[in-house]
């Protein structure tokens, strides 16, 4: 039997989590700029911070959010945090990943097992275990800053 594929509805679950998170924080939603199929899982070179969750259960794979440091700084400012230390920057990107995981859990229910976010600074060679030949890549824009959400998931049931 064929693996069922990820639909637009499922993509939206992940994207809405991010755009609404930014909306809630800054009163300014993030905009989707493009949605396409990635050649591999690699994070674009210029995006140095990544928050990643891995998913098992009814779905298998991972979802990550990646952006530049400057976006995270603005995020921290919006939160009223002036300490832009490395650990706070990683916390901020982890928080976005957390939001994605929270929204996913809300929509897909208990059958979804989601890891705690892994946060990475710098090139992410460790992101390897691809389940799709062409993962979904969605680029978003918030206050003129670009970021991407990468969805590499397959549905098992």
């Amino acid at each position, binding site marked *: *039997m*064929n693996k069922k*594929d990820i639909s*637009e509805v499922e993509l939206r679950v992940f994207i809405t989590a991010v755009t609404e998170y930014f909306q809630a924080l800054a009163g300014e939603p993030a905009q989707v*700029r*493009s*949605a*396409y*199929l990635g050649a591999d899982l690699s994070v674009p070179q210029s995006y140095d911070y990544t928050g990643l969750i891995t998913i098992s259960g009814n779905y298998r794979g991972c979802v990550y959010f990646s952006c530049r440091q400057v976006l995270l700084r603005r995020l921290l400012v919006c939160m009223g945090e002036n300490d832009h230390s490395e650990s706070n920057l990683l916390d901020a990107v982890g928080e976005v990943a957390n939001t994605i995981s929270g929204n996913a859990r809300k929509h*897909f229910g208990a059958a979804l097992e989601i890891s705690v976010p892994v946060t990475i600074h710098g090139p992410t060679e460790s992101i390897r275990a691809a389940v799709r030949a062409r993962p979904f890549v969605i680029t978003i824009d918030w206050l003129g800053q670009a970021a991407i959400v990468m969805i590499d998931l397959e549905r098992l049931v």
Partner: protein
Amino acid sequence: MKSTEPPKTSSWMGKYRSIIFAIGLFIIFDLAVLVATFFMSQQIADDTAALNLAGRQRMLSQRIAKTIYVAETEQVSSQLSAGTLKELKNASAQFDTTQRGFSVGGAATDTAGQDLKLKPLGGATQQDLLKQIATLWVPYIALVDPLTGPIAPTAETIRKAADYSRTNSNKILDLANQLTAQFEADVKEKTNLLRIAQVVGILLALANIAYIILALIRKLRESDDLIEQRHREYTHIMATVREGLFLLNKDGTIGSQMSASFPAVLGQPAAPGMDFLSILKRLVPEKDHEAATEYIALLFGDRVKESLVASLNPLSQLELRSTEGADDMVSRFISLQFSRVKTGKEITHLLVTAQDISERVRLTQAVKDAELRAQEEIKGLLDLLELEPAVSKRFLVDTEQSLDAINEALRGAGQTRDYPSTISEIFRRVHKLKGEATVHNLTLFETLAHRFETILSELRDRPNLNGDDLLVIPPHLEDIYSRTAKLRSLAERMSSKDAHIVQSAASGHEFGYMLESLAEKVSANQKKKVRVLTDVPDFGSLPEAKATMLRDIAIQLVRNAVVHGIEDANERVMSSKTETGSIHVTLKRLDANKFEFAVRDDGRGVIPEHIRESLVKSGRYSRAEADAFDERALVMKLFEPGISTSATIDNDAGRGVGLDVVAEKVKAMGAKIRLGTRPNLFTQFNIIFAAAA
């Protein structure tokens, strides 16, 4: 639904048998005591009367003696009064009657002057006493009688009686005393006996009642326990059962007992006493609600057979309208089943069972989807195999390139943010892909592209297109990508076997045989009758590189001849041809280094007008440009990629499919190709090449 039997009388009797027995016993005891009391009281009454009489005998004996003495005294003074004698007479008569009554039975007068009947006394002591009294009394009465007779007694008779009285009166008194005492003792004894009997009887009755009460209490407690246990179990069941369960009353309300899960299954608040149909109204469209109302009425009526209407249940698969909005990713399905509940013959309730069948429905749908998908893929693969390998491979490669280009356009949209033109570009590419799929008769890709187009045209018409709208595209793109890749790997695996046969055909004989079997296979698929005649003896002498290329060309041309040149048997007969079409394949040596390879079929030929139509239809040339081509130029267009006349003739026939591949190989061989054709007569390709460069 079976009606519940009322408890059987026999078992009901059995349950209380001991109590009923005890109650029976109680009644018997009471009756026995009553009867005993009655009889003994009667006896005591008799004995008391006798006792009184015995007492009177005592008094009478004294009165008799006294009146005799009075009479004696009166006699002496000659004043004997009639009253005294009368009193004597009465007393002695009364004594005598009573004495006789005591000893042999008979009438007597009691102390109150009432008549009564005496029975002879039973006791031996009493009879003995009576006898002694009689012994004294008989002579006594004999002496007294003359005193009370009509003739006035003489002094002598009075004196005799008085003498006897003086001697015996006290003895009689004494005996009467004894008799009275005896009666007294008897009465006492009987009274005691009666008292004992009554006490025992009452004690037994009390014990019995105590037993009955205890037994009843025990029974009540037992049944209370049973009821409570049943109630507990029932409550557990209703609280934990996953199905929604309740009895529907005739008035349409939910019965007093309802399983706790029912509201959850329904996704609606529900409670006993609520109107079921109005709850339903919020869940189903008006039409279904009406049908459900009718269906329930039907089941409450006793006319229809339950088993023969179950399939009509309009609520057997309900898709629930999502009330929570975004929280429900997938819609839920529930099933409501109704069963009649009868009491006796009357249908009193419907048992309603509500189940969440989402998973079942989803699985059924998933299986259907998977089947459909697999069918599509198999059909896609078969369509691809109909094409010759080079063409199908190129189609798939082209498709992947188109998809890559579409993906690039999507990626680029992030920078340009010109979403309308991105969509337009993608649309153009998808449309072209669809066109190519149509040309090659690849229904699967045609369908996929069509679906994609539908989505895109909807996006194109959207007024304020933004990045968010693009999210719908990648899943579709991915679908076509993955199917293309799958078909490509399948097709490659299948055609590599084909290629193996072809590659191994090294000698002229093998080459000929290979072409014949290819034609046989293709014609079988096309349901045509074809015979291939080969004359290729010099094939084995060709250099390896040329032989390989010629093989590819030959496969292509023979396949084309079968698919597009030869008509089906009916059409051939209509054109006054033999049913079986023939294809001649020849390889002639023209000189030491030059060869001429020819494939000729006796099919319908190439019709230049059809090529012209198809050029215009492909969109590559305008009507004016196409009209400007002469016949020769038109025929040459067949060797351009993507040109087919198939649509203008019928689905299978048409020239040009894959001929561009032939042209490529011909060019690579450094050969020349010629096409000769006469409508309805033949098509012939001639390729002239040099064996060594």
